[in-house]
């Protein structure tokens, strides 16, 4: 067991590049044991790629640089065999597309049991008991009879629950959830979020929750990392960021969130598009869309810096943004 003071996961200078496309341009992020961190960003901000890079799931021709230290050991550049040992009991992942995340030719019971028989060497009887327990734990009714059912016989929400059951089967210390509720409708979504919260409280596992949805992030996480154009632009406690964002992008996100305003007419969409991932960005990547950009923003790239206790922002005018 790691000491509480040491981060479970510490990412430093992570860069992911596919050919000329820079999906992640260097991010730093840390997750303490048992902590729930949300990674927030719009489509193409590099948040999903970050999740995959942590797991070592970036395939050729993708290139990963920087360090991903899990319990003090760097995972970048490790052999597939070393990574396989960490995937599962160390870090597990739940994917966005639950419709396709289960193999269609095996029953769900088989798929859960297989993890236990292969990785833990359990006999099938014991694995079966545990599979039933896991299915009940993630809220599947009549688990025993549904064990032999195939993925297509379950609804989307149920399939995502089974994916979660598979992810927690080996009791991971860190669960990476890559937009696990995006493909589901809102009522099902709430159930899944409650489930993730409950599981986290029971087992004490840490959570890295990747999402584009502010409201969802707030329901599961205590810390928030906001990403824009492959970089972290703001980081801190989620409630504090909601109360006082210190980066114009975060501020704009909050203003464009339907849940945060009283009437839809007050919604403010963010004009423009994120920068092209193939081009080199000079100055602040958000400057072309920023309502308060100044000549300095286009010339000089801001660093991620401490702007108040427990808060970092990548903006030249973070203090002013925070105190508007």
């Amino acid at each position, binding site marked *: 067991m790691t000491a509480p003071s040491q981060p479970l996961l510490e990412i430093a200078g992570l860069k992911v590049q596919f050919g000329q496309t820079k999906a992640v341009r260097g991010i730093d992020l840390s997750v303490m044991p048992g902590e729930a961190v949300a990674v927030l960003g719009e489509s193409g901000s590099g948040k999903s790629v970050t999740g995959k890079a942590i797991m070592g799931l970036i395939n050729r021709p993708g290139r990963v640089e920087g360090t991903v230290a899990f319990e003090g050991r760097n995972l970048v550049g490790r052999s597939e065999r070393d990574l*396989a040992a960490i995937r599962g009991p160390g870090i597990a992942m739940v994917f966005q597309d639950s419709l396709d995340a289960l*193999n269609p030719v095996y029953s769900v019971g088989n798929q859960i049991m297989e993890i236990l028989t292969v990785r833990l060497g359990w006999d099938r009887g014991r694995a079966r008991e545990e599979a039933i327990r896991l299915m009940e734990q993630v809220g599947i009714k009549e688990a025993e009879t549904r064990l032999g059912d195939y993925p297509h016989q379950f609804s989307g929400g149920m399939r995502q629950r089974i994916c979660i059951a598979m992810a927690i089967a080996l009791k991971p210390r860190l669960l990476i959830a890559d937009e696990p509720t995006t493909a589901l409708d809102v009522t099902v979504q709430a159930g899944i979020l409650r489930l993730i919260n409950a599981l986290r409280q029971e087992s004490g596992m840490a959570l890295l929750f990747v999402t584009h949805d502010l409201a969802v992030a707030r329901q599961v996480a205590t810390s928030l990392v906001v990403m824009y154009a492959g970089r972290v632009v703001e980081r801190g406690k989620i409630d504090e960021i909601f109360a006082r964002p210190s980066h114009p992008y975060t501020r704009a996100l909050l203003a464009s969130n339907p849940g945060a305003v009283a009437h839809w007419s007050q919604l403010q969409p963010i004009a423009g598009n994120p920068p092209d991932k193939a081009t080199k960005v000079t100055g602040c990547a958000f400057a072309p869309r920023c309502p308060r950009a100044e000549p300095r923003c286009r010339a000089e790239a801001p660093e991620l810096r401490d702007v108040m206790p427990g808060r970092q922002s990548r903006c030249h005018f973070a203090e002013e943004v925070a105190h508007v």
Partner: protein
Amino acid sequence: MAISDLAVTRPARSSGRIGETLAQLSRSPLAFISAIVLVALVLVAVIGAPLLRDFANTQNLRLRFFPPFSLEHGWGYVLGADALGRSILAQLIVGARTSFLVAGATVAVASITGMTIGMVSGYFGGIVDAVLMRISDIIVTVPSLLLALAVLFVLEPSVVNLVLVLAIARLPVYLRVSRAQTLELRERVFVESSRALGTSDAAIIWRDIRPLVVPTVMTVAMLELASVMLAAAGLSFLGVGLQRPDVDWGTLVSEGREYLTRAWWATVFPGTAILITALSANLLSNWMRANADPLQAAAMEPTSSREEAARS
């Protein structure tokens, strides 16, 4: 999504599904007849060949060019006799076993090897993939008949050599089909999620990818059965295939050709046997392909049974 969902629920094996497949088969008359013909031919070959092996090679010069459709000398000569007075019917049955054996063994060797290489090649990609695919391209460019002729001319023309040569020539078909499918499956989320749970590459290929590649390869193999049989017949016809006392349908056509004007039956009957087998295998394979494709299967089946299947 819905389409791929339907398509992949089929391959899982269980007795219920075999029964269901048979029921579907019986609704398609052409495919049903083809299946019966093939099964009957295999049965005749398996049961009849050991019993008739000696009779098939018995020469009776008094019955030289004995015409067919006459029971004067019993059922054994109902399809006539060849230049050395050997029974055509008996030779057909003995030849059936050899033809099926050669075709079956060739398809089995080629499909299993090709599928394995194709899946590995497609899954890992990179240099190994590039090299394997170029080798496959080279095999495709060399006419398979020429390759077989050259190899069998140098080596002893035996059943094993014939099978190996034909298998190498047909390998690229399976290799490409399974590689293409693996390339697509490799990107599916369930493969990624399997990796995220720490499954090894070998286990992913065997447990996640193989079950979805097998049905396609099976369909191709069925189609190949007919063309391999024709290729083997062609080689025998050219005289580098099997040698007496081994006999297959190609040998029979080849030997009978010399006397085509005097005794048409020595060529026509074995030729017809090849035609019927090839046609049946093609029709059945065509049905298998359509049946594995939900869009075409929907057109082939009565609506009610499909709805039931969807509900159950």
